[in-house]
């Protein structure tokens, strides 16, 4: 096992134990404060500390999840994917220069005036097809700006990169059975993305939800 793996595992174990410890602590505090609030005078704000704790917990959670979310192992490297010598990274810069996102969506985000680019790339399949689409549309009334040949190559590389993003099967296509649910194991890169880990998430999240909803309405009922 090399050092990187050890680090990753340590990290993942920390992440899970933090999550479980957080939920457990929240529950204990909740019970404690629920009992205390029953006795408390109406003057003070019940659950003040619990509320602050919940916010702190949510912030901690997002801090822990951030490095896992941008995990470079999950998606292709934009500097490695190339088309005729241009890298996807160069294409991404061209895409920013021309603000493709102001007309198209990219992984579903952006404007809805033109087709979704990840989808276009998946349907086109290979670089040459993508390039011919780009050459066909650039400079037309749909896309009234000039793209040089190099820019088109770079954009093609970038769209090949979009095509290979691990998007949990989105967008809906016949090829993926119109289902993201079948992708859990197929798209899992780390163990915490596998279907087994999902069962753990289910339990944890249901606990979290019950706790929050119940707590909120309890707060409200108390006025």
């Amino acid at each position, binding site marked *: 096992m090399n050092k990187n793996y050890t680090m990753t595992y340590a990290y993942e174990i920390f992440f899970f134990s933090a999550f479980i410890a957080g939920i457990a602590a929240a529950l204990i505090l909740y019970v404690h404060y629920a009992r205390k609030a029953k006795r408390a005078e109406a003057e003070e*704000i019940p659950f*003040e500390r619990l509320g*602050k704790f*919940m*916010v702190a917990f*949510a912030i901690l*959670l*997002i801090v822990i*999840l951030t490095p896992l*979310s*941008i*995990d470079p192992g*999950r*998606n292709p490297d*934009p*500097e490695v994917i190339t088309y005729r010598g241009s890298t996807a*990274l160069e294409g991404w810069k*061209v895409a*920013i*220069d*021309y*603000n*493709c996102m*102001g007309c198209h*969506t*990219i*992984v*579903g*985000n952006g*404007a*809805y*005036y*033109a087709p*979704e680019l990840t989808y276009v790339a998946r349907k086109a399949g290979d670089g040459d097809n993508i390039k011919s689409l780009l050459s066909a549309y650039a400079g037309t*009334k*749909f896309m*009234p*700006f000039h793209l040089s040949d190099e820019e088109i190559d770079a954009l093609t590389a970038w769209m090949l*990169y979009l095509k290979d*993003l691990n*998007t*949990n099967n*989105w*967008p*809906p*296509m*016949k090829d993926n059975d*119109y289902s*993201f649910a079948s992708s859990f194991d197929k*798209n899992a*890169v780390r163990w*915490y*993305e596998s279907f087994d880990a999902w069962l753990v*998430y289910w339990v944890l*999240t249901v606990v*979290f*939800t019950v706790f*929050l909803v119940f707590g*909120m309405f309890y707060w409200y009922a108390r*006025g």
Partner: protein
Amino acid sequence: MPEYRSQMLALPFAVVALVLFLVQLIAGGFLAFYYINPDLLSGIANFNLIRAYHLNALILWLFSATFAAVFYMTPMLSKRDLWGQGLVKLLAVVLVLVTIGIFATLPVMQTGNNIWVANQPMLVEGKEYVEAGRLWDILIFIGFMIVALVVQKTLPSPREWPLALWALVIGAAGTFLLYIPGNLFFKSVVTSEYFRWWTVHYWVEGALEIAYAGAIGLVLMLIIPDPRVRKVVDKYIFYDVILAATSGIVGQGHHYFWIGTPTFWIMLGGVISVLEIVPLALMALESLKIAKELEQPFPNIPSLYFMVGILIFGFVGVSLLGLIQTWPWTNWWEHGTWVTPSHGHECMMAFAMGAIALLYLAIPDLTGKPVDRTFVSWGKKAFWLMFVGQIVLATSFGLAGTVQIYHYWILAEPWQKVLEARFPFVPGIVIGGGMVFLGYIYLASSMLRHLLFPVENESYQPPEVKRSWFTTFEGFPFLVVLAVFFALIGTTGLWSFSSSSVLQYGNIWIPYSLSAVAYIGLGIIAVLMASKLARGIEYGHYLE
């Protein structure tokens, strides 16, 4: 004249906000026009350029209105004039220059002549909501620093702050800080999108929500000087902030389903973002309690209406239209279609109404003129036109999006066909947008008239209006529950796209009719709720 002379410094910011709001609406009109005739402007001002104006004008005018509110309220709270008034004047100049700078450099996206320094884009950043170049971001950030410094130097020691002020300060500081991550350039599209949502989502669901809750709380405390108010407001602010923050921070996950981030977000985001409806539902219910507990007539009716607008759009637009599309099973279908902007437009309108409510409140005080009848009647017209207009627009987007799902994802039609399928709903968007625009005319003219011309001497007194179901709180909690029910119908509608009934047998009427019932029903409920709340308080019908 206001109590403190330096409060007048809020005025230029208010005017800038009004002008930029107009720019935003005009840009929106051109965007709609693109769907009617795509050829006319193409090559002169491309769709993406106009859309960048639409979004950046919005962001800038919300900033400007927030600055106005801050400079108006800070002296009242600290009971002395603003510190560093020269800096505030400088800020006004910087704001205008930055706005001009942004608008002048955005067209670079039509030629691709962007400038890159140290791997960061300087003139155009080319990502939704953060199109403005890095050059301008730096200036905007310096502007934020000025506001922070002025406020910090003017306010008394934090130990004396009421909770509402804490909320406003935390919210405002959050808005400033969260502007950074979304702007950075990352090599990976995934990382870049991941952090762009920190700006966009945490603004709406976190910082702005908290800031506006705080601002409204402060407003209530300032206009109704009763020690009971502070207690009620404190409690309300506390719950709102805690609930919004807890569900909103992890609820972020609904943006991370399909952008290349790990699958655990489907679970976390799916479940926890559903909880985001709780704080907003409670806020709507809480407002009844506050009104009942205070038993005071509200002195500024236009502002009251727009505050009600935040509550109702917060509940129906932000949380329920959001609920329809936040489940992974429905988001899977609606992501990347026109269903999304139906929610987005009502969300942003909620904040716009917050800013407008604060402007309406500040202006009579700054001019020292009474809140006269014309001011109120134009203000109310502005509210209803904007409110109903935005609902019409959002409904059209939602229905068109549902049609788009079928034609684009399931039939996999070419894009021109998809545009054709969406086209029947474009008139709805145009009509809704037109109503909002008319509302703006009333809004701007009521304010300009108050600023520039003499007004009637008498303050507006609400007429005696007979009690009816439409002007009392009766049944309001039931409407809240009913609205959630309609949102669940909408959820079922989108989810039914996954059923074999639609996929295999093509029973497309199922999702279509469920969506129609949900969107139209939610629109009607929103109008009823606004009528009961706003008119109920105006006419005093909530008093027993």
